[in-house]
């Protein structure tokens, strides 16, 4: 099997597993502060793998719990955008005509908007919370998947087996979701995997700006923010969450690339 996929899956699996089993993996309560002088901003040690922050909290434990937030934002946001993208792209490509024109104009508008500022604006409007972040990232990132699905549908709907299903009186709904969609999923899997990485980055950026997760809870982005003041002498506060984001996003991208190679026969032969 493809090495990149294996690397990606292993990292993602370990990350997800430790996020799910956070209470067993983390040795300390991520919210428990210790304000005594020698417990604050402690260097990484056997006691505290990634050191402690300015309030004496264990950075490793905070990051393990933070993984729950970061990863679930990634997955749920992509889930929302997949749902929307597949549904709209599917009916757009299948029916064509004015439905297609309307949906494609909306997609173009979505593309023209600087998405990040749109997300920031909406979050400021709705109030910063992690649920809002998930929904808003999902609702602003479906355009790419929509186009992808539409393009697949445009070619698949002309295939004989679609015509054959129509001849047998199979309903449009079933033709779209049972006949065409499974044939169109290859590129969608690739794009979805890559989007998870993107969504995690956006969440980190939002939390970094204070628009995502609210204190005292933490995601990787907000741990970064908290650490930036001390970057001169407490490098571990920014290095580890930064690395976690980097490695996770990298794993999703590698997995996406690997999937693309496996699913796209045109790329397979080039070695």
């Amino acid at each position: 099997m493809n090495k990149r996929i294996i690397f990606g899956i292993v990292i993602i699996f370990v990350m997800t597993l430790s996020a799910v089993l956070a209470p067993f993996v983390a040795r300390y309560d991520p919210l428990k502060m210790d304000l005594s002088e020698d417990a604050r901003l402690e260097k990484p040690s056997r006691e505290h793998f990634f050191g402690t922050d300015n309030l004496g909290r264990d950075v490793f434990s905070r990051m393990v719990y933070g993984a729950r937030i970061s990863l679930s934002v990634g997955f749920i946001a992509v889930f929302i955008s997949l749902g929307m993208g597949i549904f709209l792209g599917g009916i757009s490509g299948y029916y064509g005509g004015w439905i297609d024109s309307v949906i494609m104009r909306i997609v173009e508008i979505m593309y023209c908007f600087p998405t990040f500022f749109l997300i920031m604006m909406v979050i400021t409007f709705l109030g910063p919370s992690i649920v809002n972040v998930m929904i808003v990232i999902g609702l602003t990132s479906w355009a790419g998947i929509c186009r992808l699905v539409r393009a697949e549908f445009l070619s698949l709907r002309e295939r004989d087996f679609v015509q054959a299903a129509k001849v047998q009186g199979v309903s449009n709904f079933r033709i779209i979701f049972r006949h065409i969609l499974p044939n169109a999923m290859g590129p969608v899997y690739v794009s979805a995997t890559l989007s998870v990485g993107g969504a995690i980055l956006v969440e980190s950026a939002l939390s970094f700006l204070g628009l995502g997760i609210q204190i005292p809870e933490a995601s990787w982005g907000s741990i970064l923010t908290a650490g930036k003041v001390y970057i001169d002498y407490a490098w571990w506060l920014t290095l580890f969450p930064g690395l976690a984001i980097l490695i996770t996003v990298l794993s999703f991208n590698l997995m996406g690339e690997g999937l693309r190679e496996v699913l796209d026969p045109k790329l397979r032969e080039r070695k």
Partner: protein
Amino acid sequence: MENILKIKDLTVTIGGKEVLSDVDLTLLPGKISAIVGESGSGKTMMSLAILDLLPDVAARISGEILFRGKNIFDMDNKEKQNMRGNSISMVFQEPFTALNPVMRVGEQITETIAAHKIISEEKIQGCLKGLLKMVKLSEDIASCYPHELSGGMRQRIMLAIALSCDPEILILDEPTTALDVSVQKEILDLVMGIQKERCFSILFITHDFSIVNMVADEVHVMKNGRVIEKGAKEIIFKSPENEYTRHLIDCIPKLGDERERLPESE
């Protein structure tokens, strides 16, 4: 006898060009009508027109298609969907592309039944077994994907799909063209056998007059979107009036006919 399907003065254009001009056709219950013609003569367009599934670029200029006296162009979408597969069914030329590659063939057979009848899953599975038996395939084929089957087997599956709801009319659009000769014969025998048993009407589209000779009661010869000659098979074969028909009949390879042989190499 009352006709089951009647096409009256059907004219269809694509991009200003007439692909069907003033086509008239009558299909009687329990009879097999062949439509013969070369590629591009409008045979497939006609079969698609009967199901009102002409491509978007095609425009119907005039004419009507009456199924049991009702014009199919006047039906609403629901009636049409009900008619397709249930009353009028079709087998395509290419069994390789007409089956969904990512769906088990069993499900592809049962979905037509499920689309038209409200019956329990158990009964549907019963129907599936009956259908597979009818087309002489074993039951465990149902869990195969299309790529695991041979061309002949796939065409049998297509036939099972088309006959799953006991249609009154079966359109066969060059069902054997993509198969090799021995499999061709098997499929034709199978279709004819089932037709004798169930007595549905067949519209058999082909370019091969030798097949027409084997199966048809009536023959319509098409050229450039027009029906240029029609009549009972015996009459057409014995005394074709049209030059073109005569050419097509002459194309049937005859036993002992040495004319077209290549000279033997020395």
